[in-house]
């Protein structure tokens, strides 16, 4: 089963995404801030991280940079989720080391495609 780590501080969004992903057959771990996310990523070795970028404490970009820098987590694909559908967020996310980028509110189908392409890359 594909294991996804969802780092999201907002309870509603976290609950909603967790339920929708679980319903589609993913195992979802959740973290409410960047530090917890880093610990879980290291401990649980998820197949993919969904990272909210505006987090309290260390933000999503910084958390991503630290994931990339950690020996055990550098290879885990990260999809950035931002509320700001603004030009530039995507580039910033990619610069920080994210593999892909999506905006909130998520369009489920599009997000699933992205998750699939990163967790089950076609040869």
């Amino acid at each position: 089963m594909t294991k996804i780590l969802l780092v999201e501080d907002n309870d509603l969004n976290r609950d909603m995404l967790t339920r929708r992903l679980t319903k589609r057959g993913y195992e979802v771990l959740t973290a409410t801030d960047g530090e917890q996310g880093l610990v879980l990523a290291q401990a649980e070795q998820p197949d993919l991280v969904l990272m909210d970028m505006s987090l309290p404490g260390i933000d999503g970009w910084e958390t991503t940079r630290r994931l990339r820098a950690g020996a055990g987590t550098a290879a885990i694909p990260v999809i950035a989720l931002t509320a700001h559908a603004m030009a530039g967020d995507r580039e910033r996310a990619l610069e920080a080391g994210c593999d892909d980028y999506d905006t909130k509110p998520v369009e489920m189908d599009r997000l699933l495609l992205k998750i699939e392409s990163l967790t089950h890359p076609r040869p």
Partner: protein
Amino acid sequence: MVKTGSIATKVALVVSAVVVAALALVGVFALRSSDKELVRLQLDQASRRLNTNLAIAERIFEERFPGDWRLVDGKPVPFGQAAPPESLATHLFKGDTPILSNPEVTALLLEVARLTGTELSIAQRLPDNRVLRLATSDTGSASSGVLTVMRSRDPTTGEPVAAGLALREGEPVFGRSTEGEDDWTLYRTIHAGNDIVGVFYAATPYGPFAESAAAASRSVAEGLLPVVLMVAAGASLLLFLLTRGMLRPLRAIHDAVGRLGEGEWPQEVRVRSRDEVGELARAFNRMAADLRQIYATIEEKVHLRTRELEESNAALGAAREAADVANQAKSRFLANMSHELRTPLNAIIGYSEMLEEEAEDREQTDLIPDLQKIHGAGRHLLQLINDILDLSKIEAGRMDLYLETFDVKAMVDEVVSTIQPLIRQKSNTLRVTLGDGLGPMHADLTKLRQALFNLLSNASKFTEAGTIELRVSREPRNGMEWIVCAVHDSGIGMSAEQLARLFQPFSQADASTTRKYGGTGLGLTITKRFCEMMGGTVTVESVPGEGSTFTIHLPADVQPPPVTAEHVAGVAGPAGTVLVIDDDAAMHDLVRRTLDKEGINVISAFGGDEGLLLAREAKPAVITLDVMMPGNDGWNVLRSLKADPSLSSIPVVMLTIVDDKNLGFSLGASEYLTKPVDRERLVRVIRRLRADGTGGRALIVDDDPAARERMRHMLEQEAWEVFEAPHGRAGLDVMADRLPDLILLDLMMPEMDGFEFLAALHAREGGRSVPVVVVTGADLTPAEREHLAVNVAKVFDKRHLDETEFLTELRRHLGAPATKGS
């Protein structure tokens, strides 16, 4: 400074020389005239003697013939030798005694004359002022006898005059009888009532006086020379002292004038003399007092005006700061609000989607339409928030370009697939026509996608069961490759008025549109701004009822805003270059794009040290300086700039998030702008500082000379160069060669009025870019008002012109022709 002492000496020398010469002449002259002088002395003695004798004679005459003197009409008696002989009609009487031909009178006169040794006569005054002798003691001489007209000479000129004119009580008359020799005569007038009717006179021959004087005068003259010299020396000394005394008050006045010139208010000059110098001193004192009064009044007025100005400046500054603070607060609020709104919206949209899925799974399909409505409304709300945030970012100049190379066809496909649901909703058909060889494009993908999406969704919104056409092609133009996307719909179309308002924020073609078609009214504005940021345009053609065509033109290879282009080379730009010192690349980008549009060259430095280096190399006209920079921070850079004589004159605009204006200004900054930058203000500030504080060229078109004068005064105080014209046609003549930077326009004028002038101005190339401020006393119709609202920058009512507001408006255009519509 005049040496008054030397003047006194000079004056004394000159005067003494003159006096010596004069006295020498006088001495010579005196030798001759001393005769006359002696005669006069003797005559004085003679006069006293005559006077005494006359008094005695009168008293005796009075005792002998009592009664008043009177004139009595009688038998005419001829006198005079001229033919026909004149005659005496009235006769002088004393009491009842006639004087003429009265032996008693003659006898008395002879008796008294013998007693006193003086010749005595009585004469009657004729109406023509001649004097006719009636009785006399003089019987022996040739001129003896009565009825002789006496002659007299003017005592000062010696000229003969009618004796009656010379009659003055007690004064000697130097005269003679008609035929006789000169006599020395003393007389007393005889009165009848108030009239002088005759004289009682005593005379002595003049000749002996002249002879006796001649001999004596010579001996006097011989002793005169030493006296002359002494008098000259004395006079010189006296004059020296006098002159010095006279010059002292002059010097006091002179010094007082000097002090007055230096702005002191001296005590009054103390000169007591009553001469001209004293008069001058008093006049000076009056003038000084007047001046002091006037000066005090002016000073008071200046003081008052200065304080008023300071107060209004402070108020303006406070208002500006408040506006800045408000603007920052607005930006922060928008950013926060958009985030705060989006979080719950995410939940609404997400949960409604989830519920839809649940409902499908559980086959509760009756719930689905309502859930879709919630979902749709949420999406719409999200779009609104995104649009507002986008627009506020654009307005604040914080919208950046992210350029990448992408395939045009892929981009179009993606947009089309996204828009399809919307198109289908309104039963429209989308027809896509792609030109040949579209190839790749270098641009901001997200923004182009959004622009295209906006146009397509707009087209669909206003079209029902129609056709929407998207044509995309690659076209060469002006030596560049362009990507052209045209969106044509068969919808309701728009009128010309609607088209004019189309790209204004929050204005859909009309208010009812929003209710009927939804939308934020921001889509087109954002689309237009996005395209402009990429160096492109959006144009529209429309026919009401037939549909509209929106066309985007974008360069196939969008040039990045040249952020770091020249800073490495560091070459001096053209005159008027602006140096931007800031560690934030986005800031360089923003300033550069803002100033590029104004034709102002910008060079960039990304740190303090580099900034100082570039400033020395390039000698920019203006420097903008950030404060928070790693290493050498803005304050240090500002200090270094102001400490370097070759750089200290370059105006520095602080452009920073740090709000410490006091420190900035105390270190020598010319302006202080806080981030986020108000771009219009930045442009104005830069333009003003580049232009070295001088205003632009302003043209006043007004038929009222007083109004022109008033406005000229205000403009010149703001350093504008002012031109005047009494009516529109003259105004056009004045600006025949070169357009002014600002026009102050009256409306009601002879020859050519303000409206005609405006039309003529706008017909000229570049004429529309000249800001026009209307200052009118006319009552405007709503139509005129509307016409002016779109054609001029501002309308002021001449009758109650708020000077502060007026000046603020002028300053708004100071050195910066307004860019309208922004």
